[in-house]
């Protein structure tokens, strides 16, 4: 198991390396980086001075490795707007983003697991049709619109919950439902199809023939196997969830990394954008690592292959 974890962690190195190249290239095709660092009416001499100070007059390869060493040591450079190191500014907002993401996953699982099981067990019943129709609609609806509609009904008209901001549990509920329900539709759909496939297997019939009760068979034998299949997909959904959180954070004025990034894009604060992209990608990579380790833990065939 330890070998698997070490090997799997090492596999993160090439994409991380690729990421630094992508970020570097992205930044350089955006035109002269010095233009963002000087005030608009700087003289050519001043511009040249800044260029040399930041090393932008050096060859590209040298600039890349210089930047790579800086990234490895955690130094991303200063945000143009805050005049402060970019990375700490992003990390400051990490708890808010993670809080929203974890709450959304929790809500998604609470909705999707029962919905997936029931629609598979009662295949083609009205319940199944309801789950299928709802989850197809959920796929089609932009989640920020679901958020706006929740604000309209729950916060503005019913006045049950606050409209926006981050101040305690009440503020978390609406954004988490917005993201969670979108995620739930995907998980429910997957769980349904993998459970249906498993219920056709012979060991399920055997378990029934042994005299086990129907629900015991479904939950203990069926669900356990179906969840194994769903775990891998959950990893892929992390990138999707974070992407969704960018807009949902903006809708609910949730002070996370997504909102910071949107602001930084509007102001073309490229250092902050770069730091944000890196942190998002790291979260996705680590989440996928955790998913793979969990998967190997519950599925010995992977661990030993």
């Amino acid at each position, binding site marked *: 198991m330890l070998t698997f974890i070490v090997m799997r962690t090492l596999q993160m190195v090439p994409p991380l390396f690729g990421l630094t190249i992508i970020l570097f290239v992205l930044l350089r095709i*955006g035109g002269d980086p010095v233009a963002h660092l000087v005030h608009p009416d700087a003289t050519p001499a001043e511009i040249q001075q800044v260029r040399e100070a930041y090393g932008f007059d050096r060859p590209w390869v040298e600039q890349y490795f210089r930047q790579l060493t800086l990234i490895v040591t955690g130094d991303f450079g200063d945000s143009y707007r805050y005049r402060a190191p970019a990375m700490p500014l992003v990390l400051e907002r990490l708890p808010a983003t993670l809080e929203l993401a974890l709450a959304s996953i929790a809500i998604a699982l609470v909705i999707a697991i029962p919905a997936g099981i029931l629609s598979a067990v009662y295949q083609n019943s009205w319940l199944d049709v309801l789950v299928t129709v709802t989850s197809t609609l959920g796929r089609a609806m932009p989640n920020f619109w679901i958020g706006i509609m929740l604000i309209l009904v729950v916060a503005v008209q019913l006045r049950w919950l606050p409209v926006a901001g981050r101040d305690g549990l009440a503020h978390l509920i609406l954004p988490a439902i917005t993201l969670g329900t979108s995620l739930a539709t995907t998980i429910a759909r997957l769980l349904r199809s993998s459970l249906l496939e498993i219920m056709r297997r012979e060991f399920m019939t055997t378990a029934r023939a042994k005299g086990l009760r129907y629900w015991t068979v479904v939950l203990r034998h069926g669900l356990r196997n179906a969840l194994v299949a769903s775990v891998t997909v959950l990893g892929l959904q992390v990138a999707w969830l974070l992407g969704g959180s960018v807009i949902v954070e903006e809708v609910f004025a949730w002070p996370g990394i997504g909102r910071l990034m949107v602001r930084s894009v509007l102001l*073309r604060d*490229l250092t902050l954008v770069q730091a944000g992209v890196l942190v998002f990608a790291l979260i996705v990579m680590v989440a996928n690592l955790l998913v793979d380790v969990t998967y190997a833990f519950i599925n010995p065939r992977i661990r030993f292959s």
Partner: protein
Amino acid sequence: MNAGKVLRSLLRSPVGLIGALLVVGAFVSALGAGWFSAIDPTQFHLRNRLAPPVWAGGTWEFPLGTDQLGRDIASRLMHGARVSLMVGVFGVAVSTLIGVTIGLLAGYYRGWVDAVLSRLIDTFMAIPFIVLALAVIAVIGPQGGDNITLLVIVLGVSGWIDFARVVRGETLGVVELEYVEAVRALGQNRFWILVRHVLPNVSASIIVLVTLNVASVIIAESSLSFLGLGVQPPTVTWGLMLADGRDHLATSWWLATFPGIAITLTTLGMILLGDWLRDVLDPRMMT
């Protein structure tokens, strides 16, 4: 499978049929926007600001009501369809071109080409689609005008990963087939083999992916426009309409409700059509 057979199977499938009707509906309102509605979508009717829809106390002059500047919502919805479909279709065309090329090359040449391209795909997979699009927008910056070309490029270069992944996987299988080996033995040149013999075998998956990706790109376009980073006023788009609507939620629910319904119906059509195509063209495929 020929076109006639596909059409017959469409008429038999409620899912496919609903999807096709919704997609056709979106295209018809986009193309006929000026013809259906006599009202200019950008014209202010200041005396009729925030007029409600006809069933909520409004008049037939503005059947779905008006916005904060008195602009006709029904007319704006139809004109908004133009932008969404244009960005969706052209954006996905760019993604398809990039993704299919990378996928074919990785799957056909294998070896170090595949190793490099696969690492590239892995890397891009870690960056959420919308985050990548935001980064590209930050780098390219506002270009002036309505930004539609910018969005096509941004969403096109951010969305190719799905295509590359699926096409690579399928190409790996196809080049193993005997007939590909046979044409290779005949001395055909590689480019020709890829285009003439490999590409048609992976085209079913590409068609399905195109349909489903148009839906994601439409949602992405409306998200970016909603954030103020996409299409710029006075061009009419659903995302901008939603942004206006959010500011008037307390008084006028219809501003934010109708554009969302328009987006949902359009993407729903694409998704249903895509799911149906997947069943018809290749039941084994999973995306």
